[in-house]
């Protein structure tokens, strides 16, 4: 996580990332949030594209997690009614979906206690075959685990960190299960989970946002 070297850009960014950030997210949705994380190269963004600028502060982190959980929740809801799965696999996917919904509720509450919760994004997920969807589910869960791990060192409140850790390991459980069900290793990164930055994660999820 590096800060913009250009002081003017940094000040512009920090102005966005301060108390106004929550309002910006709520008003204009995910677009503003993604722009702030420097993952877009649009000339209309105020951040430098050569430097990775991260929003700071627990509200931003919680809203980032909330955004991801909204997407997971929607994904599983669509998967459950897709007709692609049955039996034990369907049950597993439904259980995981219920847990993502619980994550949404918890993070929404936390965000609300800090400021303005992020707006719910609209997802778009290809649901072509059982194999492809199970594989996508595994990708999403592994990404979620990496996302939480990436933010762990930056969460300031011990209460929020405790909540994030309790969610992080559930995403890891989901990931390991889906990996195994799709004939992949439950520990694809070996002995240590790999963290991903906000920029990296949002770049991967961008195609799944309508």
């Amino acid at each position: 996580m590096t800060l913009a070297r250009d002081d003017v850009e940094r000040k512009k960014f920090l102005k966005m990332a301060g108390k106004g950030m929550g309002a910006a997210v709520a008003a204009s949705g995910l677009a503003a949030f993604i722009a702030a994380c420097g993952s877009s190269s649009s000339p209309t963004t105020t951040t430098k594209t050569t430097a990775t600028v991260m929003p700071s502060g627990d509200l931003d982190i919680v809203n980032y997690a909330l955004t991801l959980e909204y997407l997971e929740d929607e994904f599983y809801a669509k998967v459950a009614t897709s007709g692609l799965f049955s039996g034990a696999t369907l049950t597993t996917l439904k259980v995981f979906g219920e847990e993502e919904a619980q994550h949404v509720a918890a993070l929404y509450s936390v965000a609300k206690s800090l400021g303005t919760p992020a707006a719910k994004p609209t997802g778009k997920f290809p649901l072509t075959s059982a194999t492809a969807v199970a594989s996508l589910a595994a990708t999403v869960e592994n990404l979620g685990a990496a996302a939480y791990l990436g933010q762990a060192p930056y969460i300031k409140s011990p209460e929020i960190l405790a909540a994030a850790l309790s969610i992080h390991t559930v995403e890891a459980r989901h990931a390991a299960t889906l990996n195994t069900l799709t004939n992949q290793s439950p520990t694809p990164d070996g002995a240590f989970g790999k963290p991903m930055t906000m920029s990296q994660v949002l770049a991967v999820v961008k195609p799944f946002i309508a």
Partner: protein
Amino acid sequence: MTTTLDSQKGGGELAAVEVHGITRSSFILRGALTAGAALGAGAVAPFVSNALAADATGDLDILNFALTLEYLEANFYNVKAKSCNLSGNAKTLAASFGAEETAHVDALIAAIKGGGGKPVAMPTFDFPVTDEKTFLSLAYTLENVGVGAYNGAGPSLVSKALLAGSIVQVEARHAAAIGLLTGQTVVPNGGFDKPLTKTQVLAAAGPLIK
């Protein structure tokens, strides 16, 4: 300017006001988390309280406690497994997970030494298991206790959050993989993994340490 909790405006200044030893924002957050009004927040609440009750004894003490658990798991998978007549997936899993626990041991020793501390010596263990069934059953317990231990201690760590997080993610993956293999739930705590106190961890793991 009066600084009473009743004032809902001017959050910027009030947020930093200490109330009964905790900051105002922390006070509000605890209220939100323990209110139980929303399913999500209520679900997280007991777990957050549990984590906050954990002893904060400093990073090196916490890492040494983790090291003891990792010694235990490494020994279990690498040594004890040999006398349990494992085959197939169980055998593969024990070998793979054993290598990962060994890597955890090494990383924790390096982190403790790097922090100017002295790594604890490896204890001797006594695992009351004799065959594949009992081996996997204890493995399931140990991995889940490991997740709880790291999640419990996590918020107390000052500087090793990423290391601990990258390890606990893998413990959670292990727990899920073993659950899947043995027909036990991959999510024994549902949507939020439960942080354990040191006392609770020792209650589970203590009997195995000679």
